[in-house]
């Protein structure tokens, strides 16, 4: 496991149940998989609509990865951690466990430090 810092930006719309759920899920995920090496910025588009327009946030909540895979987006309440971990190159997944995996995921896995 490298000591790379993961930076996230989470866009939510107001203090609605799905906003709160997303925040809680992200926090939990980070605590579990990236203890001590993550930064989370939470943007409430209701309070900051210009940013939503600027960054084309149409579905909320949206998680944008700033580092190390800039621009990757995950929409939803983040209740299903599996795809998130795959994208972030975390998780327990091994390359041979996913023979049908798409190339971009495979390349992510290549970059995954052992």
């Amino acid at each position, binding site marked *: 496991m490298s000591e790379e810092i993961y930076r996230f930006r989470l866009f939510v719309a107001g203090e609605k149940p*799905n906003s709160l759920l997303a925040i809680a899920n992200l926090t939990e995920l980070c605590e579990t998989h990236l203890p001590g090496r993550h930064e989370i910025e939470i943007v409430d*588009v*209701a309070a900051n609509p210009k940013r939503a327009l600027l960054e*084309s*946030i*149409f579905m*909320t909540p949206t998680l944008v990865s700033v580092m190390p895979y800039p621009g990757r987006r995950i929409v939803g309440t983040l209740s299903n951690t599996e795809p998130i971990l795959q994208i972030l190159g975390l998780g327990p997944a091994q390359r041979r466990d996913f023979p049908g995996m798409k190339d971009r995921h495979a390349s992510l896995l290549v970059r995954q430090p052992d």
Partner: protein
Amino acid sequence: MTAAPVNDEKLSTEKRSTKTPTGITGLDEMTGGGLPRGRTTLLAGGSGSGKTILGLQFLANGARHYGEPGIFVAFEETPARIIANAETFGWNLEQLQPKMLAFIDAQPPPDLVQSGSFDLTGMLIALEEKVDEMKARRIVFDALDIMLALLPDAAAQRREIYRLHAWLLEHELTGVITLKAESSNSGPFGFMQFMVDCALILNHTMVLGVSQRNLRVQKYRGSSFDENESPFLIGSSGFEVAVSRTLGRSDVEVTNERISSGVARIDTMLGGGYYRGASVLITGFPGTAKTTLSGAFAEAACARGERTMFVSFDSDANEVIRNLGSVGIRLERFVDDGSLNMVSARTITGSAETYLVRIKTLAKAHRARCLVVDPVSTLSKSGNELTAHSVAERLIDWSKAEGITLVCTSLLDEMAGQSEAGSPLQISTLADTWIHLNYVVQAGERNRGMSIIKSRGTAHSNQVRELILSDSGITVTDTYTAGGEVLMGTLRWEKESAGRHAAEAATVAARLDSARLDAEEAELAARVKSLQVELAAKQSEKLVRARSAEIHESELALARERMSQLRGTDEAPDLPRVTR
């Protein structure tokens, strides 16, 4: 008393303000003024049915003509592509941006990863920002189905549709949501149908290989609308919906003005010519001089200084001009001075609707007062039969509304017999004047016969005339009726000259007769004279004879007396008298 009209006006203003004009030809007429203001309109149709164009035109017209800024939310295509695709329509989208028209690229990224549920609140917040910034009045969500497809279930889709609908109502935006839908009542489409205030359905079908596009207003809450499916066309300036009769259109002004048909005798036959604004149908088999007659009309119109358009489906403009030139109809000068627009529509392919829209657009651009469509029967070529009749009807309807005098020719199928009613077009019932041309085959030659089958509101001759084409133009002559037979062409000529010969011969014969009689009379008179002379001779001879006999007698008596004196005889009483 003055209160009532004021109220009425107020009402009508209010009524008008509940609709947002789309500025799209035909659509505003169908809906009685446009889409419901501040409400949501669903625009559904299959792929390639023209949803995006209609939505974009709604915004472009709003921005250009009604001063209403609009936002286009694109879920399916990039705004750049949409703008590029619409470039040919001449809406000047670049000039409208960013103040009057804005595009929001809301395409979900192709590699979007989903984890758990989401909603569209973010989009609405972003849009709200944009709406406030632009003071937008109109908004179009193009291909909402793309976004809805990301939602996990029907319940979530409904929830988001509700959210969107409520948002639109709250902001009093006139919204158009386009949705791909092949069949009705399925999925989000069926649900939205019930929710929205107005639903338009576009469909695009192929009939015998000819593209037919139709638009239908499926529902419109609180308003009357044209419920029929109306054909539409995506033309050079965008959407055009063909509506035959616009709701509440007042009757067209009619006139008693007559205009020349271009052939003096036909004018006489019609009692003065065609009515201005009338629709004239000229039917006939190929080669019966339909084009020539319509060309004569065009020439006469141009000579009067009226702008005229000649649409030929058969041949190129130059060919038409050359061919008509051979019968003394010279159109070139009018093409040169710009009063005549020759349009060869041979190159136009597509539905009858396409033709009609093109003709209308061109005629409008030319400001034509007279229009020739040669032949209108092209409209009903394969694949168009279903719509051709209504198209012809609309052509006539439109030309009447515009006050354009329309002359159209219609080709009759030789096999179909002489009744135009047998053709799919059936415009003979709609036309005001119907001139029929046909061939009369007699003694091995074909001649052109012309008759006026009907002419509304004009007294007209019911006689079949012969149409003669020559270098100097068209002439119409009376046919020769002999012994119950109508003769035309050389037969007529022969009969006519034979008649002339016979009359001459009769005169000569009469003269000869009278001379002979004179001679006989003279001869008889001469004979009478000679006989009289002979008679006189005989009479005098007779006289002479009588005298000489008398003399002889008296001499004999004298002699006898003398003898008796000499003999001294007495009287013998019964002595027979001796005579010679």
